[in-house]
């Protein structure tokens, strides 16, 4: 319980200060956390969104995906499903561990 409370407070705090964090450089560590916390809710094997890992795309494809900012083809924006402040961190994590990256990572 205590963990969830602390977690919630921390996520809120991070969300509020992410602009500063980004100015100083996005955090891959936090990107991984947000990816698991937010994206993996739907994007696991057998779940509604289908499995997504950093290996799902190449570095260029991930970059293009986040630049476009569309969650589903022609439908909702990424910011409709992921807090805008989390996106740069998630992008950094996914690009750094993409299928053609020097350090590919399956990540759940």
């Amino acid at each position, binding site marked *: 319980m*205590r*963990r969830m409370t*602390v*977690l919630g407070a*921390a996520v809120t705090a991070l969300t509020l200060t992410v602009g500063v*964090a980004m100015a*100083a*450089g996005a*955090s*891959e*560590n*936090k990107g*991984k*956390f947000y990816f*698991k*916390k937010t994206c993996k809710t739907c994007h696991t*094997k057998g779940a509604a969104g289908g499995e997504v890992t950093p*290996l799902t795309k*190449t570095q260029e494809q991930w970059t293009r995906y986040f630049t476009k900012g569309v969650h589903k083809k022609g439908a909702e924006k990424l910011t409709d499903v992921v807090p805008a402040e989390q996106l740069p961190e998630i992008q950094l994590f996914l690009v750094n561990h993409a*299928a*053609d990256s*020097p*350090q*590919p990572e*399956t990540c*759940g």
Partner: protein
Amino acid sequence: MEPVMSKAITRRTFMNGAATAAAAAALAPQLGCARFLRSKPAAAVETREVATACEVCPNKCAVMAVVEGGRIRKLNPNPASPKSRGMLCARGNAAVKAVYDPDRVKQPLIRAGARGEGKWRTATWDEAWDFAAKHLTEIKEKHGPEAVIWSSTEGFQEEFFKNLGLAYGSPNILRHPTLCLASVNLAYSMTFGTVPSFDLLNADYVIMSGANRFESIITPDTMDLIDSTMNRKARLVYLDPRFTVTASKADEWYPIRPGTDMAFILAMLNVIIGEERYDKEFVASACHGFEELRAHVQRFTPEWAAGETEIPAANIRRIAHEFADAAPRALYYAGRRSSWYSNDFQMRRAQAILNAIVGNWDREGGVVPNSKIALGEYLYLPWDEPTAARIDEMEERFPLAAKGDGVFLQARENVLAGKPYPVKGWMVYKQDPMSALPDRGRTQKMLEQMDFVAVIDTQMSDTAWFADVVFPESTYLERTDPLHMLPGIWPVVAIRQQVVPPIHDTKPNLEIVQGLAKRLELSDYFDYTIEQWLEEQAKELPIPNALEHLKRTGVYTAPGAPFYGSTRKPDHRFLTRSGKIELFSERLAEAGHDPLPAYTPPVQPPPGAFRLILGRKATHTHANSTNNVWLAEFAPSNDLWLNPLAADRLGVASGDLVEVRSDVGVVRLKARVTEEIRPDCVFMLHGFGKKSRTMRLAYDNGACDADVLVTAMDAVSGNAAFHETFVRVAKVGEAAGA
């Protein structure tokens, strides 16, 4: 408080004293193997079996521990594991003695004398944690969090230690791979996008460059190889300057000139490509850069390689033919051995490329990508990323090396030079850099220039001997660890659960980390129990009550037979930049390295000097087990192998005491004159010559290779290169009875 362990015990006094009543009393619990197994338990005691996973080497074999009356009676193999099957090696069996070793660290210790003097006082856990936290806080305030290095070796609880270092704010997490297999891992990753397994069980033709599998580590895949070569008559070609046990079982052994293995491989490529014996269809569909490779190897003829390797050209050509004919059930085996030369990465790349072009990838008897089993993950709170650059300057010097592992030798050299910033603290978990790094004198200097050193370990290692505080970790049989997935042709999830409660005042690493985190105000990042961690991990396993299943049986394995070929489908994308197997690597070229394996002849020893080569015995794990009384019965000490031609020149006979001198140090040990080594090399076993007087069997016993090894690194991976040392040998004493 009375200092403990302050009395120096030399090896001589210990060995002499062993016959005396006093020493006999001190060693009373150290029963030899035969005596222990003959001893009878008390009648009518409770007996139970606990499934767990061995920790003595990286193989993680499954174990069934037999507990009688609260004491571990015996460790049996757990046949349910496809990783270890019905096997537990000598080291695995001897883990019982690590629990009941009287030389263990039994409670927290704080240094009471000069560093390395061996004077300690016992402390409470609170005292030890407060002491460490005070120093870590002071260093952080004065120099920044980057001024503390956090170094560790592989283990199920290593993650907690690394995470504490990161949460503290240090970028300087230093793991063991650059003292181990970093060059192999990087070379195969850069070629195939992953580090594969080698299907020794089903191979028909195996070539090994010095990976002494029949002698240096005995695991089930060793038995697979034995089965292949002895029963199925698979062919084994073995290259090694030394006649090892593996050489004795091979069909062909070549005492290759040290450092020229890549010339042999390049000549094989020359033959196989020149004579169009490669797998054309696979190369065309799955490989990138074949034409560049074809042009590159044209000049590396068997005749040229014969001059480099001292292996006849006709034999190289024949072996190339046989290898290509046996493919896909033919493989050039990569592991297990560390890096030997500063071109090790490129030599491994050449191996990987040879494997690729004969089309053995993902085929039975070939080189197979590892299967995995998904585990859940405990989602802990993320900390702020460390902001400082790494001390080892990886980004500039080794940009392709694994970011999370660091480059150990470069880190040490930069710490000693004080650049790019001062490092004043060293936290060590389950690792003994004093034994593992070449040039022990420089490692000791690194320790001595620290304001603070803490070690978490089960025993008083040489590094712990120079620490300020030692946190005693419970042995693996006394604690529960996170679940661990072991990827492979037969992947398995292993559980390591507590067999008996700690018999001394020791703790699992997680609790040690949590005690420190609390005092460093980092508790929020470590706010979980080991049980919560395990529950999250087990959630992903596709069976009901997975954790209970694991606790009962010790393992979870995927159902069905091993599957080959999933990565040979036309639409498969390899995890490389091009999406194919990279024979030619643009990424290497961009980093300033040769995009194809380029050969440079090794520097030869000057006249009168020898190349020092190292090796392991299956009865010891690196430098960690030489104080285990059972294992010491198998390999009590080390000696120096010397060819009779060289011995005659030096007037040395077997048993004589010799001095071995390199540019950085000198050691003394007994000589073994043998034809089982080339005349231009000498050999010693790793792991002996301990400085820690607390390790009474290992202290001052034989010679420590790290005393004479020079600092050399593989150019791409940063892996320590362990066979780049030249030594001179001189007789300094007669053999007993001579």
